């Protein structure tokens, strides 16, 4: 067994298998083995009928393709079967509870999909004349208004494409604001419990990352910030609620310390779901915060994106928002697309992306907001926190809580103390959940806790659903106590695949399909 740097096993124990497959086809009832497209497709087959054009003189400047491409095609029925079979190998929020901590896997209302597909939103071009898209600007303005009200902030940069892109945008605004004051600061404070994107973002902008140690209860102490803060520190990147599922109760004092030294307060908004409608980050001293529309506002994760990461900004940073940005125009909005169109007071630091950002995600997020309203937003936060605490309370006697038995926010964090000396790891425990029909929780994160298991049930789960989930984890925990290691060591047994060899994948990367006769060549 090999380990990665968090002690997480990356290769299965050899000999843990149950031998070959039992059926002729390799299929197991409804679980059908599906070959790669490249093994079943044919170069001459197409699933799209396209008219053949008569001969004409091309004007490709001698750049006409001389080589084959290597793109097999499938007919329409074959295509549908290929992808439907693949889809059936995926777990999804529509399948069951998806307790990935810090990922906020909540229900995705289908009305949002329908709205995003209205031709007036989906079939408009980012550069068609402005006079032909007033409804698009209206929608972006309306979403901006909701985001600013929910967060209590002065402005919002809409265009970032995802959470980490939003972080980059917010930190760029901070760097630009410092430059406008004639200052160049060298470091940024980041708590040890932060998402990896935080230090990666700060480092990308040339900042030295200074770790803030967590205090014993998993939160950041103002004294620790005061000790590290100086006129050479650009600011702090703080997640609140933090990744331990705890609200940073000294957030105002921390903000004040950072501001006293002329620094800025960047908040990672990944966990906004816990506090929306309960408290507004802008009222707590936040200067910039990205909002993961794909978490809090339920735009579908789609197997890893697309996301959307608008960044709300305080008065102190509003002027530095990148193009394109909205400018108030009476009741409506002006859409400012170039730095040249900015006024003297507007100092956009540049541009994050071509065009205007993730319009398709804006429509879904606003549709979610309309569907929930002020009342539903507050209730959703309360239910998310209630469900998490119900999980915590239901498991506190059989699993281990690193910071004692105290209320959490929207996610409950356990460590692996309850697995100590059993030979069962966090990974084993998580993989056994798969056999029970659950997607595991977030594992081995945050790094401040050993063998972390971070559970976020969200507001979308019924009491019955959470009850069954808790009962299942209790049953697994009892197996741990009783030394029934067999349930864990080879898990999962019932999933489409058993544990995969990540070490082999990384050591001998095979990242695309090659024809069998070229394999020998590739592997040398």
């Amino acid at each position: 067994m090999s380990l990665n740097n968090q002690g997480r096993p990356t290769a299965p124990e050899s000999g843990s298998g149950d031998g070959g497959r039992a059926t002729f086809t390799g299929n197991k009832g409804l679980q059908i083995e599906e070959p790669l497209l490249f093994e079943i497709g044919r170069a001459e087959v197409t699933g799209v009928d396209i008219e053949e054009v008569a001969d004409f003189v091309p004007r490709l400047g001698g750049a006409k393709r001389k080589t084959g491409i290597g793109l097999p095609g499938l007919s329409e029925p074959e295509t549908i079967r290929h992808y439907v079979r693949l889809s059936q190998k995926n777990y999804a929020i529509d399948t069951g509870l998806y307790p990935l901590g810090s990922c906020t896997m909540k229900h995705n209302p289908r009305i949002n999909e329908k709205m995003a597909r209205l031709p007036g939103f989906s079939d408009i071009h980012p550069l068609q004349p402005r006079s032909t898209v007033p409804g698009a600007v209206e929608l972006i303005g309306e979403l901006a208004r909701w985001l600013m009200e929910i967060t209590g902030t002065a402005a919002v940069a809409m265009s970032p494409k995802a959470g980490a892109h939003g972080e980059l945008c917010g930190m760029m605004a901070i760097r630009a604001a410092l430059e406008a004051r004639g200052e160049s600061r060298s470091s940024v404070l980041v708590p040890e419990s932060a998402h990896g994107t935080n230090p990666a973002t700060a480092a990308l902008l040339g900042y030295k990352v200074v770790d803030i140690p967590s205090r014993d209860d998993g939160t950041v102490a103002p004294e620790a910030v005061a000790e590290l803060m100086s006129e050479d520190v650009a600011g702090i990147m703080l997640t609140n609620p933090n990744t331990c599922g705890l609200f940073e109760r000294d957030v105002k004092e921390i903000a004040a310390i950072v501001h006293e030294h002329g620094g800025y307060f960047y908040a990672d908004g990944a966990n906004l779901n816990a506090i929306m409608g309960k408290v507004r980050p802008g009222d707590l001293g936040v200067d910039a915060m990205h909002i993961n529309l794909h978490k809090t506002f339920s735009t579908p994760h789609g197997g890893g994106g697309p996301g959307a990461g608008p960044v709300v900004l305080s008065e102190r940073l509003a002027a530095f928002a990148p193009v394109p940005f909205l400018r108030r125009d009476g009741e409506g909005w002006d859409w400012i697309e170039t730095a040249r169109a900015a006024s003297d007071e507007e100092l956009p630091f540049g541009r994050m992306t071509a065009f205007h950002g993730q319009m398709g995600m804006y429509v879904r997020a606003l549709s979610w907001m309309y569907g929930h309203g002020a009342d539903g937003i507050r209730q959703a936060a309360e239910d998310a926190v209630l469900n998490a605490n119900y999980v915590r309370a239901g498991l506190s006697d059989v699993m281990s809580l690193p910071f004692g038995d105290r209320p959490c926010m929207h996610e409950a964090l356990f460590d692996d103390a309850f697995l100590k000396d059993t030979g069962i790891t966090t990974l084993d425990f998580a993989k056994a959940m798969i056999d029970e029909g659950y997607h595991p929780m977030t594992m081995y994160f945050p790094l401040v806790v050993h063998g972390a298991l971070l559970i976020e049930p969200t507001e979308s789960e019924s009491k019955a659903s959470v009850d069954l989930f808790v009962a299942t984890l209790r049953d697994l925990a009892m197996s741990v106590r009783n030394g029934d290691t067999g349930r864990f060591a080879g898990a999962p047994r019932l999933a489409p695949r058993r544990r995969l060899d990540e070490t082999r994948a990384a050591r001998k990367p095979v990242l695309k399909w090659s024809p069998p006769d070229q394999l020998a060549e590739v592997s040398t």
Partner: protein
Amino acid sequence: MRFLPLTDDDRRTMLQSIGVGAIDDLFADLPSAERLDGPLDLPNHMGEATLERRLARMAGRNVPAGSVPFFVGAGAYRHHVPATVDHLIQRSEFLTAYTPYQPEISQGTLQALFEFQTQVANLTGMEVANASMYDGSTGTAEAVLMAHRVTRRDTALLSGGLHPQYREVVETVSRLSDHKTIALPADPGGTEDLLERIDDTLSCVVVQSPSFFGQIADIAAIAEKAHAHGALLVVVFTEAVSLGLIEAPGALGADIVVGEGQSIGNALNFGGPYVGLFATRQKYLRQMPGRICGETVDADGARGFVLTMSTREQHIRREKATSNICTNSGLCSLAFSIHMTLLGEAGLTRLARLNHARACHLADLLAAVPGVELLNESFFNEFTIRVPGEANSVIERLAERGILGGVPVSRLLPGDEALADLIVVAATETSSEEDCAAYAAALKEVLA
């Protein structure tokens, strides 16, 4: 509230078993002075019918591309997307799955990504591709940063044919991360002398082909000169369909190929979400940003797929990561991959030929309008025309006649007199011959 399954009874019971009296006891760590006592200053929840009416009214104020003769491109293209594509990406198991962190129950997403990577590598003529970027513009910025890491140099040379907004994205990231860019002036005629500007200080040369103005660049010559000076060649494209007909950048010496994949499988969506394609040489693999899917076996020896090479990534490497990127463009890459599967090589080639034929036809029609000049010697499905007068007002007057005739270059590059009379015009398989004829007739009227 239709989205929230807990009843008031449930809530009471649950609070009891947690051992607190009221929900706000769970929020006790929030500062009391700032805690909101009542709801936000926003309307309460709407029923589905009301919501639909409200949003449909906003959508109704826009002119959809499909409702008019439509020739707008400049980095986003309207193609016909088969109904199969949108149906399949709305399968719950694709739509509502997270990043495939648990490979045993994510093989659907992972195998699709492996197939996507293979399609992108083959299409671009490169050895490896990642599992997608946010879009073409941010992918281009990542390509430049990657070239800096590979060459340990810090200056990128940007061709004047690069999409102006891509250029701005690269310049923004470069400036704020203490790297340098040399951007050549906008090059509508495809006449810039890029070769002359290549020297030993450059980490990379960034060339778009077909360019923002539609010109097809001589990639091989630029590759040779760049390599002679130890610089990488980054080739950018914004129209993936073009690669069905023109030579793969990988076959011409590109070191990194990055582009926008929207035009295959994805709607216009007013600019996003789109999907960035990113491919490079095997030897630069460990400097490539973004998620990567790889083949392996499970404990039974069965083939399976996992996210791999994660020691480059932020969640492992934190401040030492190759990029801060976490999310990719999963569902859009799936749409790309499904559409590409439906097309296959035969369909893609035919689609590309049809696009080129339509554009040639339209270019001839427009060039025949008195006063209009075609700037391009070469192009794929997009070209630049010079009109007498302000391009902006020509486009507005065409819109009044119900024709969306292209992008005035001055919209992206305002304030340059030499560019004020230029329009970038795109034609795809969705631009019918009648549409093309209507455009030419309307342009003639507007210019008369």
